[in-house]
């Protein structure tokens, strides 16, 4: 089913402008640093300048001479604040996983550049910054492990001296089919064996992090404000780490300026400010600087990937075998070890590959911890399999679209049980690809590409395809249990109708830029027959929305939106009972549309929802035993993941004289299921594509051999701007998910997942006749120029 050409019947499916935007665009929205907290203690964090060093001494005397600097505290001084508590990791992926104790401020040894080693308490943010800069730390340097493969080399220095190796865990997925895999490779007509590098990325949302802990000393309560994606999870974790009763703790996320996963965490500063606020009986706050964020906030990716495909003579893949080395960084943050697993089920891509083996060994390095970053494991998986499929196409001698067509899971195969153990909900991968090929004008592009070669032009055209499928709608709680994840995957919603028939939606999803308020309003408005502007959406405050599991992994709509949908239905059911009572009719004889209950076949017998709402409020005449008011709460635990998919096509022009890559065209056809608001969907896809293209062409967290982050500012860490964005040409091909009643799947990460392999496949395609078969990310001009030179047998 295709919905793109269909005019929407109601608000769902309409390109409604976001109700969030006026406050954001006028500056009315309040972010963490906008909070006015008179008398607050400002925290400045002294961060390690060394990748690995013993802390010999901390001299705060110069800092204490600065006006407004009141205290300098070492990790040793602060240790009593957390006692036995440490920063939490919620995902012990194996029973023997190593999880080194991670204190908010290091006591004796700094493990990475940016590791907190001391804290300055001051009267202002300025004094805190001056004070932190003036603290002198005496380090005794230790050997550092910087690169992933060095961590597992013989004789590698240990990141954690108390562990006997740098290996955190090894997790595998192959069941009992190892012999079948070996047989497939032994019999294969074509074997592809590739090694790919996933560089580390700095998430860099528009708003860095920040937090403020405000105590109520008389009652012992604490309110923690934080620029977080996860106020609900943060509340539980803070309570556990610091031993605060959950009944005494409230967590509020004010307006949050993006996260891309990096605010899906429990950070040292949140625990530090909370503990200090309780101890001092005063507000304690911290605002992260942009340069600070580069090393103090988690980074993404960081993998060495080995992927092998075994295919028959026709290019039909019979087995995929993957071995990863994944960089955890120095410590495990909230879901650090689980990120490779989120991709671990998807290394067969969109393809029907009967034999599957995945193994990941994760290692510690002396670098900033990694964790979830837009796509979290799935961009890495898609990159590897889509690059490998292009290599297979070359080996077999067919086009990239043909090798995909020969291997796609068929449209008639759904629900499809994959060899990795998932059940895919719906899709028509071939139809999606066909649409993308047509939209891209692939024949004309290929003709242009050939003409350039004939002309001997130094500017070559490259065309790259990427077909992806991802798992969203995280997640069925029982499945999470099987993966040893420390929480469930449900989401909660409450829908209330006020006496004047305005609607209040309370959602456990926590928006930080997605547009929940707009989309939830559209869903509710259609079901209730009210105007979306009559719907308010409350969120992000555990006192208002006490139950929730927050926003990450493209889960909001498929899980949180479904909960809203179901809670609305539950309210309608109650309203129907009241309407039947008033109309003296059977509930079965009532129909509800456009906000009015009618008795079928008796047109004059009707009552509007507004009348029911007021009657429910007065409670003067309700059915016997019915509670007053229209309100319903639903906690929805999804029965399965959802599986968005699509095909993206990138067209690049490569200047072979300079190595410069110009992204000249970009086509994306996505199946994110039914779209609630296509305008928001397109925004997600646009941003996602640029973020994926950024990994392909621009962004790289570069560390030198001493473990110093060299690309630590936005002059050296190249986040692309609108000027670098390609011409986007989008279409969709929706196959509604049967997993949830709206048929939605999720779209927050799709662009990022698809874009990097599409772009790099295009770069390699442009240079193939020059002998180039691989280009590392990011494909900077120098990297491309050198790849050409190397392929041509030396520097030109």
């Amino acid at each position, binding site marked *: 089913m295709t919905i793109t050409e269909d005019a929407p019947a109601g608000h769902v499916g309409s390109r409604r402008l976001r109700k969030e935007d006026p406050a954001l665009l006028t500056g009315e929205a309040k972010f963490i640093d906008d909070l006015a907290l008179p008398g607050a203690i400002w925290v400045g964090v002294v961060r390690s300048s060394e990748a690995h060093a013993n802390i010999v001494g901390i001299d705060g005397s110069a800092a204490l001479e600065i006006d407004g600097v009141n205290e300098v505290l070492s990790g040793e001084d602060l240790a009593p604040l957390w006692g036995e508590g440490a920063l939490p990791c919620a995902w012990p992926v194996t029973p023997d996983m190593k999880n080194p104790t991670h204190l908010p401020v290091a006591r004796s040894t700094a493990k990475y550049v940016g590791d907190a080693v001391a804290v300055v308490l001051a009267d202002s*943010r*300025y004094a805190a*910054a*001056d004070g932190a*800069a003036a603290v002198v730390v005496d380090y005794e340097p230790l050997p550092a492990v910087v690169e992933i493969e060095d961590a597992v080399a013989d004789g590698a220095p240990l990141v954690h001296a108390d562990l006997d190796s740098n290996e955190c865990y090894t997790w595998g997925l192959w069941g009992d089919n190892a012999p079948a895999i070996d047989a497939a490779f032994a019999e294969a007509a074509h074997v592809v064996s590739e090694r790919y590098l996933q560089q580390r990325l700095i998430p860099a949302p528009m708003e860095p992090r920040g937090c403020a802990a405000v105590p109520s000393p008389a009652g012992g309560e604490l309110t923690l404000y934080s620029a977080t994606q996860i106020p609900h999870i943060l509340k539980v974790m803070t309570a556990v780490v610091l031993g605060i009763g959950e009944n005494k703790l409230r967590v509020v996320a004010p307006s949050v300026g993006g996260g891309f996963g990096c605010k899906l965490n429990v950070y040292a500063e949140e625990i530090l400010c909370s503990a200090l606020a309780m101890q001092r009986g005063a507000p304690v706050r911290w605002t992260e*600087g*942009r*340069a*600070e964020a580069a090393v103090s906030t988690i980074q993404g990716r960081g993998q060495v990937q080995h992927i092998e495909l075994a295919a028959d003579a026709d290019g039909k893949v019979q087995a995929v075998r993957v071995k990863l080395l994944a960089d955890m960084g120095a410590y495990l943050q909230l879901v650090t070890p689980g990120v490779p697993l989120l991709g671990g089920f998807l290394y067969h891509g969109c393809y029907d590959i009967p034999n599957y083996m995945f193994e990941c060994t994760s290692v510690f390095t002396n670098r900033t911890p990694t964790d979830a970053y837009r796509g979290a494991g799935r961009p890495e998986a898609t990159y590897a399999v889509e690059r490998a499929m292009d290599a297979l196409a070359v080996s077999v001698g067919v086009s990239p679209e043909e090798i995909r067509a020969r291997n796609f899971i068929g449209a008639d195969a759904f629900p499809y049980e994959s060899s990795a153990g998932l059940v895919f909900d719906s899709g028509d991968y071939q139809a999606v690809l066909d649409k993308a090929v047509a939209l891209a004008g692939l024949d004309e592009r290929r003709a242009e590409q050939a003409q350039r070669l004939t002309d001997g032009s130094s500017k070559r055209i490259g065309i790259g395809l990427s077909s992806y499928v991802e798992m969203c709608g995280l997640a069925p709680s029982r499945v999470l249990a099987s993966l040893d994840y420390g929480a469930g995957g449900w989401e909660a919603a409450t829908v209330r109708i006020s006496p004047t028939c305005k609607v209040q939606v309370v959602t456990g999803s926590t928006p930080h830029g997605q547009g929940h308020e707009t989309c939830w309003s559209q869903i509710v408005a259609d079901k209730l027959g009210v105007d979306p502007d009559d719907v308010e959406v409350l969120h992000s405050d555990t006192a208002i929305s006490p139950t929730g599991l927050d926003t990450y992994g493209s889960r909001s709509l498929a899980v949180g939106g479904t909960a809203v949908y179901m809670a609305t239905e539950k309210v309608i059911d109650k309203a129907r009972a009241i309407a039947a009572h008033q109309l003296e009719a059977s509930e079965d004889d009532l129909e509800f549309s456009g906000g009015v209950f009618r008795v079928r076949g008796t047109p004059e017998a009707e009552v509007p929802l507004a009348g029911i709402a007021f009657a429910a409020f007065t409670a003067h005449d309700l059915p016997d035993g019915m509670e007053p008011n229209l309100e319903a709460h639903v906690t929805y635990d999804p029965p399965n993941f959802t599986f968005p998919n699509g095909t993206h096509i990138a067209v690049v022009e490569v200047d072979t*004289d*300079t190595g*410069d890559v110009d992204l000249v065209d970009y086509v994306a056809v996505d199946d994110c299921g039914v779209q609630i608001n296509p305008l928001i969907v397109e925004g997600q896809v646009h941003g996602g594509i640029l973020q994926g293209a950024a990994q392909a*062409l*621009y962004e*790289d967290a*570069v560390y030198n051999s001493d473990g110093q982050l*060299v*690309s630590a*500012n936005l*002059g*050296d860490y*190249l986040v*692309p*701007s609108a*000027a*670098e964005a390609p011409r986007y040409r989008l279409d969709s091909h929706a196959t509604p998910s049967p997993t949830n009643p709206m048929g939605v799947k999720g779209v927050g990460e799709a662009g990022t997942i698809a874009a990097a392999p599409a772009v790099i496949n295009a770069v390699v395609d442009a240079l193939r006749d020059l002998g180039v078969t691989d280009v590392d990310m990011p494909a*900077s*001009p*120098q990297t491309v*120029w*050198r790849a050409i030179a190397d392929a041509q047998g030396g*520097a*030109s």
Partner: protein
Amino acid sequence: MIPAAFDYEVAESADHAVSLLAEHGDDAKLLAGGHSLIPMMRYRLATPGVLVDVGRLDDLRYIRTGNGTVSIGALTRHSELEHSAALAEACPMLASVAALVGDPAVRHRGTLGGTIAHADPASDLPAAVLALGGTIVAQGPGGSREIAATDFFTGYFESVLADDEMITEVRVPAGTGGWNYQKFNRRAQDWAIVGAAVADGGAGVSLVNMGSTPIRASGVESALAGGASAAEAAALAADGLEPPEDLNADAEYRSHLARVLTERALNAAGVA
């Protein structure tokens, strides 16, 4: 990203600015557009004790043409160079280069005097003034002096400008003879990884980010004067240079880019 504490003075005139500089010595820095200085202060790479704000000296915002010379006030914004009809007629190269500096926000704040005084070898306009054979007018306590652009730049962020001098005017010869500027970077807003400027049909050739200063490519110029082709001359572009190395480019790649971009600039300037 919070600068160290500093004092702030507003200059009422160039004379006033110079007297403030004389008073505070090397502890003072002039603040014009601030788009180079402020980021350095936020990273605490620069910690001046006093900022002397010359950004309000509107009498130093002008573009005057006549007698074969274009005279530009030091506080003239890049965006004013970019959009000036007079400059487009008298010295289109300078207008064109100004349009490639940074992004629109930078061009609306940044000033010609500021970018010359900052002496960043990776900046566009200093190299353009160098290729054009421009002159820098500096005012100090003892009066004004004229400095040839070829004599102005002495090292990374260093020039012959004294601590108590400020640039008041930049002069370039009027001329529309074959010119071109090739700027190579990864993002539109960035400094050039390498840039090549050609003025006056190849009589003036300069390079951006190929050493510690903007560099006059004298080898290329003399080869052209001696009858070499553009390709032959451009092949000499990197000879004898020690280009910087960074994440974008090592010395070998920078040298390659200098040759490629110089040839492209020469060809685009009409030099065969």
